[in-house]
């Protein structure tokens, strides 16, 4: 395989129906398997709201973004959502270029993201 294996990791934090994924490192075609695995695991466990904390995300490619598209329909069908927060400028730009903010909500801080969920209840 060309290129160095970028490192990618996910730390999950839960509270009730909400689960937060801290995405750490680089999310691209080589590392997205882990993200898929996590989604599979937690979607099956009936978590409704998935908050993606992007503060430690260094880089993301279009392949990585595909994972969110894969699960968003199922999550929204259960009445939940994927919500993004804390993206660095560079990262937000990548999401923006593709048009993600049109489809998903982005918040500057995690509290705001959580508020948007609890506020709606």
């Amino acid at each position, binding site marked *: 395989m*060309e*290129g*160095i294996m970028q490192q990618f990791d996910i730390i999950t934090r839960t509270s009730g129906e909400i689960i937060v994924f801290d995405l750490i490192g680089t999310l691209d*075609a080589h590392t997205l398997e882990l993200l898929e695995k996590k989604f599979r695991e937690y979607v099956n466990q009936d978590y409704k709201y998935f908050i993606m904390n992007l503060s430690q995300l260094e880089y993301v*490619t*279009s*392949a990585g*973004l*595909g*994972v969110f*598209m*894969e699960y*968003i*329909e199922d999550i929204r069908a259960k009445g939940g959502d994927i919500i993004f927060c804390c993206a660095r400028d560079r990262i937000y730009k990548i999401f923006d*270029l*593709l*048009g*993600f903010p*049109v*489809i998903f909500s982005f918040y500057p801080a995690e509290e705001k993201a959580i508020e948007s969920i609890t506020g709606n209840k």
Partner: protein
Amino acid sequence: MTSFIRKYFHLLMIFILSLLVFLINLFEFYTNLYIPLLYYMKEFFTLSALGFSYYFWNKIETYKKLQVQYVLKSFLFSLLIFVSLLLFRALFFSMASYSPFFPYVSENIYALIFSAIQGILLIIVLPILLIYLRYLFTYRRKFSTPFYFNIFIAASILSSILLASNPEEAPDLFSVNGDLRDLMFKGTILFTFFLSFRHKWIPYLTKRQKYIFSFMSLFIIPLLIILFDRLRIPVTDFSLSLLYFFNHIWYFVIFYGFNIMISLWLQLPTASEFEQKLKALSSLHSASREISFYDSTRVLFQKITRTAEALGQAEDIWLQLFRPIGVSPSELIISKMDHQILKDFLQYSFHPKIHEYVRKEKKSILVEDVKTHPQYYPYYFWRNHIRSLIACPLFNRNHNLLGIIYFIHSEPYHFDYSDLELYESFSAQVSLSLENSMLLRELVEKERYQQEMKIAREVQLSLLPSDIPSFAPFSLSFQILTASEVGGDFYDIVTYRDGSRGIVLGDVSGKGTEAAFYMAEFKGIVQAISQLCRSPRELAVLTNRILYKNVERKVFITAIFLQLMPGQRQIRMVRAGHSLPIKIRFRHHSWTEISSRGIGLGLNAGPLFDQHLEEVEFWLGEDEMLFLYTDGLSELKKSNGELFAFNDMIQNLSNEQHINRSADQFNEMVLDSVHAFLGDESVNDDISYIIIR
């Protein structure tokens, strides 16, 4: 007739010669004359007959056919023949009588006839006994072994001749006589005695055979002695050389028989142990043949357990695989336990673990009694059929740990250090085959992958437009550098409803054949509907609608759709989630990004896509340049993480001096800076760009 004679020539000669001997004896019997010439002729005929008999048997009983079992059985069979002969004599020749003293001449015609019958029988049988003796003697021979046996034959024949040349006297076994004949005779017997100690075939009998032969030998030895006593008188009457030859062979048989009997009896206590070890060794041998490579670890493991079970002793066998290699145990395949126990074992946290020892020390371990072992006793309390244990590491050629095989038994002290050695060499075989199977699988995977990539690339290249038409008044230059894994880039040329030309530059998410497939789909859709569309926006909207229904959820395409208006230098554009195009103004040595709203294709069924898609229109002067690209170029990275200075390159391109350069020339410039950056390295994502002047 002649072929019959040729085939049975030796047999015929035996009979003819024996008949001649009989006739001479008959003559002597009736005439009572002793004529030396006739006597020597008689002995000559006897010896010749023996010779023919030997050659006859040599042809039949080739070495290849001989095996210990067969030889012993045939030997017993020939003893049976002699016993039958005795019975025969008792039944039909009971009236035969011989003189009481040496040379035991026959006193009546019946005796003479019987002597002849016995004589022929001995002439026929003795050589085959010799051949069998030779086989047993030279079992597992050294270089000089047959030599000793040949000396024995030669000595026996010589001795027979020498002794027969003096028909009056019989040698006395218990007194020493300086006479050459006597020395020859006794010397041969002594030599025979020493030869009789060579019976290397005995240990390799099975335990059962050893027991059977031990008991049989109790009867056979006396029988041999009895036969000797009963046979010697008639044979003396028939021919002296035959008598002495018979003597020598029979002494060998008797000495050998005694030796065998004692040896067998002494080996009985260790027979079972020995047999077990032999079996283990032969299992190991067949294991190394059977365990070649297999497709799946599971099949390999089945073979391993079968062969390991054949090695004997282990009641249960586990195979523990380490993935990644040498780091941590990931898989445990247990032969006689079920999945629940497997899970149980992996979660049971007893420390220290045996596999830790094996992994660190890189050697096998024998635990004679798990229950009383100071460190590993928890294994016994977890499952009490683990009472004694051997664990052997499996190494690949780099001496990294592939896995561990455990051999388990419910009795303590069931394994000892010689077992450890055996299992270690078995494990070495297993390592080899395990590694081979893994390497093979990797190779197959790699080939399949490369084949897939090849197909994907072929598809990708075939989707690109073959001819570039004129875009007057614009001039265009296209470039695509494909990554080996196929990154999803492609471009195409379309014609709108009003005949104006346009281009599409796109990037499909995903890689390999998947990307190529969606590329083809996208191109198909775009080509099909572009002639119905009036503007790039319409094209994009319709394409998205169709695409969304026809691709997987996780797939999306970013693209730029352009329409190059004929006549004027006017361009219409929509940007569906793609990187922002760059407009260079050479006179000002500056460049700007043209931004317009738009999300990627395939993300949304329609409403949001349409809503957020902004169409822009602008004019491209002759002193300006439009640069479209995919993120393969803007995000270009080297393997050490160094980022391509994209902005700097654009800045360089926008130098006023380049104002008159053609699109193709700019194409080259960009290509050069990419190659300068990468050096020897290859791209890992597709790079595409389009230059419009």
